[in-house]
């Protein structure tokens, strides 16, 4: 190999540089987020595992069903009926977006654009109608 003396140290520096985020954090991904679950409610529209994996797909399905297909058939959970909707259904039990949604989303560095339009319970309460 030509230029062994420069190539090998160069490669090593490169590898150290690229893996910097890994070893800088001590090869751990940090504490696993623990979203705050609603008090008193035991059942969601789907099992926890499925919700954890596919809640974004379900929200998209609901969105298309309600807006485009005019299919607003209620979702039944444990004898109770709910409308299909993020703001009107999910946030009725998961009343704190910051302590529920954001915990995982911040950890995974995803920025869903839901809240550009949809109101979080906290935002909705900030300009509530005074009766």
């Amino acid at each position, binding site marked *: 190999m030509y230029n062994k003396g420069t190539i090998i140290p160069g490669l090593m520096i490169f590898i150290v540089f690229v893996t910097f985020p890994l070893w800088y954090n001590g090869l751990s991904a940090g504490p696993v987020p623990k979203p705050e679950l609603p008090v008193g409610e035991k059942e969601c529209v789907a099992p926890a595992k499925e919700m954890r994996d596919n809640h974004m797909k379900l929200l998209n399905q609901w*969105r298309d069903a309600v*807006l*485009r297909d*005019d299919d*607003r058939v209620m979702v039944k959970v444990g004898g109770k009926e709910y409308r299909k909707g993020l*703001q*009107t259904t999910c946030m009725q039990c998961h009343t704190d977006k910051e302590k529920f949604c954001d915990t995982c989303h911040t950890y995974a560095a995803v920025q869903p*654009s839901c809240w*550009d*339009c*949809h*109101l979080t*319970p906290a*935002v*909705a*309460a*900030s*300009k*509530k*109608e*005074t009766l």
Partner: protein
Amino acid sequence: MDTKRRKFLKMAGAAALAGIGAPALIKLNSTSAFASEEPAHEAPAHGGETAAHGEIAAATGVRLGMVIDMRRFAEQPELLDQAIAACHKVHNVPHFPNDRKNEIKWIWKAPYANVFPELDSIHKSEMAKNAPFAVLCNHCDNPSCVKACPTKATFVQPENGIVAMDFHRCIGCRFCMAACPYGARSFNWQDPRPFIETYNADFPTRMRGVVEKCNFCGERLALGLEPACVEVAKSAGAMVFGDLNDPDSEIRRVLDKEFTIQRNPAAGTKPSVYYIV
């Protein structure tokens, strides 16, 4: 040398003649060959659109519409303000005082001359001269905004004829605003949230860069409620809402009884909002 030039000119002339003549020959051939098939081709292409020139074919199925009785609104000037306030509260519509550029319109007031420019005349009734008219999206049967939308963010709901908006899909190109002959669409030039007075937690707001308009209260209809403006104006008989295709509906009874006009019928959009003036 001379003979060669002569030959060349002859050949060039012949080639030019052939070049000019060939398209004409091909054209003649093609028309004669396809002439017999043409009527069969044309029938399905035009059958779906309009039956004949000037004839209005009604869409089938539920088709929601509205009759606005301006006589009642003129009697009670505060009624229209209340209807507008009810709509804006339910749908989180922002208010931009004295700012026409940013104005967001769902249901709004306009003078007769602007609502019915083609029917405007010098000697009109007191009401047409003075009373502000209620204007909203016409939820057309043949909406030009839907044709213009490149992402299908605005579309006709086949179940009820509402011209709906899917804000998730809107890319803010504003083609629909240019296409709408009624100016019923508004663009969010900035984040509307600071300009919303009170939030309705049951309905989202909009974000910067999307177009919005009246949705005939699709979300309220799903809950068995009437549109917010109708709920306010119904008791005074100023607004009637219902299925235009149901001959026994209240709206059809009103339409059968009263003479009504529509905004810009010449645009061919077939609006679902009728006015008694």
